[in-house]
């Protein structure tokens, strides 16, 4: 529950600062200033990330379960999540970095064979799947002063906020139905924390990066690695499917 308060707090603080930044837009000599164009560069307000995560839902970590149903069906092989994140760099803190809200939508799926209850032959050919669509809303803090002021092409960042996953358990016939008639789909709330490091590809070819900015408005292009803690264990829910994951994330991002 403590982490939930961290998530709430991060989002609330970001919202407050974003509002302040919007109001202080006219007087950019204050403590905070909104993003604005640098000399010779197009305006920079947003960032978009294409993300690939090594995603292993922590279903079996639910303390109310006696057994490991997820591992029994899907095994321990690596699963992947494909996601998109969109960040608004609402506030620029001079000589430090940017702060703003970000949203993300992802998709991951695990599929296995639903074995016969009697283990007889012929073997079952029916499949069973768990499909998860993780969503989150986070405050994103990027420390880009190293790159902007010191020309070191690394940007460390951190994210904190709230997550929610829509999920669906299915089999060959469609959405699974439990023994009591409960439909195998729902949503789980939780918290979202992450920290990572971006590497600017602009240092490899600054001229091309400048041309890209002039032609498309993309200021910076990064590759990044991130460690993400998606603790989706059901904040405020009496029953929740634990579908969060502590994951390494890799991807490509664009600032524009």
């Amino acid at each position, binding site marked *: 529950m403590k982490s939930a308060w961290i998530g709430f707090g991060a989002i609330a603080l970001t919202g407050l600062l974003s509002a302040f930044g919007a109001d202080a837009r006219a007087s950019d000599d204050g403590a905070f200033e909104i993003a604005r164009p640098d000399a010779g560069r197009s305006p920079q307000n947003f960032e978009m990330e294409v993300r690939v995560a090594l995603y292993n839902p922590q279903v079996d970590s639910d303390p109310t379960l006696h057994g490991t149903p997820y591992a029994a069906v899907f095994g321990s092989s690596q699963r992947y999540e494909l996601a998109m994140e969109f960040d608004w760099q609402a506030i620029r803190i001079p000589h430090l970095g940017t702060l703003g809200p970000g949203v993300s939508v992802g998709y991951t799926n695990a599929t296995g064979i639903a074995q016969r209850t009697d283990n007889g032959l012929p073997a079952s050919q029916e499949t069973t799947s768990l499909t998860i669509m993780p969503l989150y809303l986070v405050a994103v803090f990027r420390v880009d002063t190293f790159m902007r002021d010191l020309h070191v092409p690394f940007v460390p960042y951190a994210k904190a906020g709230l997550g929610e996953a829509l999920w669906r358990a299915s089999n060959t016939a469609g959405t699974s139905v439990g023994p009591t008639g409960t439909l195998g*789909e729902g949503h789980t709330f939780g918290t979202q924390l992450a920290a990572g490091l971006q590497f600017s590809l602009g240092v490899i070819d600054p001229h091309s990066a400048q041309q890209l900015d002039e032609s498309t408005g993309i200021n910076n292009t990064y590759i990044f690695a991130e460690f993400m803690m998606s603790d989706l264990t059901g904040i405020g829910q009496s029953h929740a499917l634990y579908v969060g994951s502590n994951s390494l994330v890799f991807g490509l991002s664009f600032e524009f």
Partner: protein
Amino acid sequence: MRARFSLVFAFAFAAAWAFAFAPGEARAQTTTSSAPSVAGINGAVQRLEPDRVTSADNSNENPHSSGVLVNDLNFEDCQANLVYGFDLAISNLSYASTYLLNIWAGTQDCSQLANRQTEATAVCWPLITPVIVNSNPYNVYVRMEDIVSQAFTTSHIVSYAAATQEVCQGQTATGATAITVYFFFTDAQGNPYGNVQPYPLTVDLRAGDVQGNISLGVGQDLLIVNIPPTSDPDTQGWNVYCDPPPGNVSGVATVAVDAPTNNGQCPAQVPDSSSVDSAVVDANDDSSADSSVDSSFDSAVPTILDDAGGNACGVKLNDAGIPAPGGCSSSSVLVPGTAGVTAVTDEAGVTTYEEASTITDEAGTQLLSGGAMKLPPPSQYLCGQGGPASSQVNLLNLRDGVYYNVAVAAVDALGNVGPLSNVPCGEPVPVNDFWKLYYEAGGRAGGGFCSAEGAGTPAGTSGLGALMIASIVAMVRRRRRK
């Protein structure tokens, strides 16, 4: 000068208008002044009852196969003995007693005498005996059997002879063939006069075979049909048939026991239903034995039958009380397309039918060639469909413990259903899917995306989604302000 030019222009315009919009008869008269001519056709499809032609307002009008065009002719149409009814508009009717109306079918212009003169060289064949026309419009009927009768032969008859239903089996290769019906007048020597009216048709009487054997995968309340890939471009999909049909299982669950030595009781299985781990259900719904059986199969205690045959305990019996391999009884509805015929036409134009041949492909799989086309099983047995690229079709809403005979047939663009594949038998069985194991492990989540799952969680609300929307709205508003 201007007035004269206007007059000439007006006259030319009027003449052009008159020519363009004048009735067909008038135009025909300008091109053929001394012979009758077929000026127009209105095609329609009607049912031909045995040995007679129905009237145009017959209640069975347009019994054409659903989903195909009126000028598409498929096996079902041929097999149903349908006819095309044409309304012909005849010009110069006063001369018609001198000339004969001809209707021929072929792949080239049948009005040309050379194309219909001798059996050896003819590429057309007659659809009626030439007649003198005495009315306008003139109604004429053409039998589909006559149209297809010579479509797949190398030589062609030049005198009309009504074809029989066997010609519907005449196509041995798959694929559509373009056949045109020609309407025209000739003199007594067969020389054409007047206009020629063509009516194009697409004829396809054969869908492809299933190229190899199908197999069945099992699941809970379902079977998965594995279909071998096809190389036949004529195949546009698959029909899957089940016997007994899903949702129509009226059979009795039976457990085979050995009767004579134990007085009809199998000690290991009687009378506790919980010890029964398999069941056999009558696959033939029309069986008299079925009508008296328990319809509540799922909850009923399986009936212990006495096979009186000295079989070992636990041997599964079919509906006839006979031990059957795998617990399946053969289907009288789904019969593999193994017994086929091939059409062979001799020099005299007589078509005979020979048994289908079996060929083996490079992979060693035996394929049927020229198997007989049959009308598909009744629609009630259709339990699944797939596209041409489908390698699997899921048969849902079946029952665990019931044995189903399953067959697959290829379907082509004109709705023909090919010969049935092999007919494997399968039994849906209970499985452990993730959700079931999760619940058995004590998990209690779920209930739907909109379910209320705890205090503080409003029903029907995806809270984060609302927050995200609000965030995006805020971004847009801010951008606009800038």
